[in-house]
């Protein structure tokens, strides 16, 4: 497996993990607005960084698979452009809500933000699920059949599964103890629906997972850790809120890497589209140093976030 393939999927998994948290927070906030005060505390530093992760994924894809861009650019023009427009709406309304002058405006702005985020989520998940399944697209003619692409059963199942997962992550990250029953039910439903969808519509993926013992082991171990994290949350052991994000990241990473070396439902051999070898070394270096920079600066942000006020203003 090429290192650039792994880099691309690590960035993808980081982006999707954080985006799922945001979708979960938007979904939870819309359903239970009373919990918004708690959600806001995490959402405010997060929404800006998530948008940057989206760009990070797009650019890493451009750098790693430049020869695939023509096909991707033509195929996904409509969903991506609509998602980009809604992205402006999302950013605008979350920032408006940050500086809203009264509770009613804050709630209204948050609702617009929430709806835009959910629709963006649906479009983004549709793109990635079609890349997994190849449903709704014809890669030979670069044609996208919009209705089939959006509303095929695989996409709907994956979307529901991920929304429920996002809801669980939110409850665990924010340690919302009152939602333990909902969270447990949502997590089991999410896993069940995800498995049904994957095994029915992407048989090659299942074959890959069962064909490579290491992927199978990794998936089993990570699912066990997920259940263990849920148990900790139910028992109100709040270390679960630190475990859930890495766990989600590894679930997504393992599933996405298990597609290797094909995309679009086993139709397209991805390695042919890899960038020339001369570009690989600088991409690896920039990614490594960039990730190091990100880790240090995000650690500093967390340190500052948890630090107590020490200075009184003159």
């Amino acid at each position, binding site marked *: 497996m090429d290192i650039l393939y792994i880099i691309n999927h690590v960035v993808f998994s980081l982006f999707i993990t954080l985006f799922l948290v945001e979708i979960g927070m938007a979904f939870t906030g819309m359903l239970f607005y009373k919990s918004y005060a708690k959600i806001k505390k995490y959402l*405010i*530093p997060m929404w*800006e*960084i998530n*948008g*940057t992760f989206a*760009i*990070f994924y*797009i*650019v*890493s894809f*451009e*750098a790693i*698979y*430049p*020869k695939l*861009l*023509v096909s*991707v*650019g*033509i195929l*996904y*023009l*409509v969903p*991506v*452009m*609509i998602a*980009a*427009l809604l*992205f*402006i*709406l999302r*950013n*605008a309304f*979350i*920032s*408006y809500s*940050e*500086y809203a*002058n009264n509770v009613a405006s804050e709630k209204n702005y948050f609702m617009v933000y929430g709806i835009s985020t959910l629709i963006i989520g649906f479009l983004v998940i549709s793109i990635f699920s079609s890349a997994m399944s190849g449903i709704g697209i014809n890669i030979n003619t670069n044609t996208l059949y919009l209705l089939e692409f959006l509303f095929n059963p695989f996409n709907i199942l994956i979307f529901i599964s991920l929304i429920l997962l996002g809801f669980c992550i939110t409850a665990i990250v924010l340690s919302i103890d009152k939602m333990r029953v909902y969270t447990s039910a949502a997590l089991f439903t999410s896993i069940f629906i995800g498995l049904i969808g994957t095994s029915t519509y992407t048989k090659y993926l299942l074959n890959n997972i069962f064909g490579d013992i290491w992927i199978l082991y990794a998936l089993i171990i990570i699912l066990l850790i997920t259940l263990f994290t849920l148990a900790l949350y139910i028992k109100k052991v709040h270390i679960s809120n630190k475990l859930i994000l890495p766990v989600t990241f590894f679930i997504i990473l393992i599933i996405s890497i298990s597609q290797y070396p094909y995309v679009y439902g086993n139709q397209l051999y991805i390695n042919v589209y890899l*960038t*020339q070898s*001369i*570009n690989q070394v*600088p*991409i690896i270096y920039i990614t490594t140093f*960039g990730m190091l*920079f*990100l880790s240090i*600066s*995000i650690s500093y*942000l967390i340190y*500052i*976030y948890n630090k*107590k006020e*020490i*200075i*009184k*203003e*003159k």
Partner: protein
Amino acid sequence: MGLGVIFNRFDMGFSLSIHIILAVMGIAIPLIIMLAEILGQKYNNIYYKTLSKRLFPAFIILFAIGTASGTLVAVNLLFLWPNFMSFIGQVAILPVYLEVFAFFGESIFIAIYIYSRKKIGVYAHAFIMGIVSLFAALSAVFITMLNAFMNTPVGFNISNYLTTGNITNINPYAIFSTPSTLIEIFHVVSTSYLVGTFILIIVFAYKLLKTKENKNTIIYYKYALRLMLFVAFISVIFAIISGLLSIPMLYSLQPEKYAALELDMHPISNAPEIIFGTYTNGSLNGYLTIIPNLQSILATGSPNGTVPGLSQFPKNSWPPLIVHNFFDFMVLFGFALGIFFALLILLKLLKVDILGNKIVLMLSIVAGVLSIILLEIGWLMAEFGRQPWIIYNIMTVTQAANYSSSIIPIAIGIILFYICVIPATIYIIQKTYKNRDLSKELSE
């Protein structure tokens, strides 16, 4: 050129024209916040302290829209010009990749700035906002590297590409040092600080003009304007120097563009600087000669120097000649900004209370508006001037485009969307400040 490609270009141009305004504010406002915070602490000055606090909400809202508009530009690049991005991905992707981390730096340090107030020293807190400004400027630097590559492509075997279409002998690092990179960066960064600061000057000069009674508020606006005019003055010096350096660069590296900007139909020595004029029926009409030999001096360093003419190049490689008018307005408006600052210096030497003078304040607003037009015209000139190429002498705009018919409704949607979002944002910012009593904040 098909209708789809025209919409591609319009969509890209429209999105960029909005984004560059937001981007220059994203570069300049953090610098002003940092300087105000430092000055406020150093002189224990409540006006500067209040300025740093009050600018921040506007900055955050504009940053939110700016990141989204930047994302839309990035998405536009890939989806409207897939062949172009595929080429860039193979030859010149590194600065685009680095820009992502600059963007991350900006986002993360904004969050650090929010949460570090009262948790670290004031100078350290101000320094964090300086880092935000630095990362914002770095983003501009990296994207300008891509633009420089589009003007002066390097880093692969060009002749082999033109004959076979294969990209060979790639040097991915060459994009960091194309012949036009340094000067373009110098010009983009200096004009970003200039225009970003001038947008604030428009608002503060207008507010000062409107404020009649509250003395404390008047002093606040004067302190703010003094700081902003100082930053704009320093920036304009660098903007003029970098602008002048761009002329010989164009002359040697993009002669068609140079000839179109100056409307030189034939190569000529002792070339005068002309303004206005149109080229019709094979002759140049309606132009004004302002200074003899000036064009030759600026381009070649000698009054006898020969400048290129469009007749040296095939007509299908000429940029649209409207770039000459863009160039004229750019020079005239730039000149007007220079005069504005010269006037301020003169009044200062005469010990006139500059900021107490209504005419100066009105002129500041006019200068601010001119600076915005200057920025937009400058970009239009740079981009139209490279036509028909998207990558000079390598790939045309039509070769790069996505020909999907879906682009037309999407482009219309984007334009309508911006028409709603930008006024809404201005309204929300206004509403935010209406509910924050300035005089109360100044007395706290």
